[in-house]
């Protein structure tokens, strides 16, 4: 029976690297680092509440970081790596689901007993929040595949 396993144990012939291949590892690392850094700066900028003076400073500082990351990109030719938007959104939903599970009455019992009515009320609330997360997850699947902004 043909299993598709090669029985040829001779050393493979050395591969010929295309021009520039030696730089590829360094550039890939740089692209990844710049991508992660740019995304973090973008999120800080988006989260900053510009109605407040101290938060305006954080917003401006995050904006300056993004400009500097773009300058590094220009100087090195390493475009920041981007992940798909849906994978980023899903990761956040998983984070929320994980922590919401901890809020369930069965887990809270570890901190002391719960009266039956209180347990029922809390169960209903956590279930409602869980349903909202499920709806969010469903909405995220409606998004076409695209790169993060």
């Amino acid at each position, binding site marked *: 029976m043909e299993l598709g396993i090669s029985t040829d144990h001779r050393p493979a012939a050395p591969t010929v690297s295309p021009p520039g291949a030696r730089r590829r590892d360094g550039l890939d690392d740089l692209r990844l680092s710049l991508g992660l850094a740019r995304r973090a700066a973008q999120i800080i900028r988006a989260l900053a509440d510009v109605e407040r003076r101290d938060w305006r400073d954080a917003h401006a500082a995050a904006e300056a970081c993004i400009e500097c990351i773009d300058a590094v990109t220009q100087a090195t030719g390493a475009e920041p790596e981007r992940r798909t938007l849906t994978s980023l959104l899903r990761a956040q939903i998983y984070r*929320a689901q994980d922590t919401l599970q901890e809020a369930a009455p069965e887990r*809270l019992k570890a*901190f*002391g007993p719960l009266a039956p009515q209180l347990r029922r009320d809390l169960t209903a609330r956590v279930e409602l929040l869980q349903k909202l997360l499920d709806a969010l997850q469903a909405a995220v699947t409606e998004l076409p595949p695209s790169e993060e902004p």
Partner: protein
Amino acid sequence: MSDALSDPQQRALAAYLAAAEEALLVLGAYARLALQSSPATTPVLLGIIRKIDTFSATCNETFSTYALPVIFRDRRLPVADELNRLVAALENVRLPEREPDAQVAAAKSALTDLRLAVNALEHAIQGLQPLLHLPAEAPLPE
């Protein structure tokens, strides 16, 4: 058996709900960024943002009903998380080898500027006052 939450239960519930809400706060920030660059997906993104608002409103109600300590609900926490990610990413930056000298010099200069900018961001974030309630986001387009 008491029909109210004990203090440790209140703190635990508050911490978990706030952490879930923070995760969605970041999700909302991504969705808002995407709104600016992908108009084709606007209806879905608006739906996502509104669902996050509903989640947040339900959390608010729970905080109020069970008198949960609001000290956990601090927008600085996700911002500090992101800053840590930014700094960690920057620490891993390596310049590609074998660039022409002028290009290496330009890249080093740009990286120095970036490190200074990140220091300024760290300083700005350290100076942030706590936000006990998650503030309303900017109005959404109709």
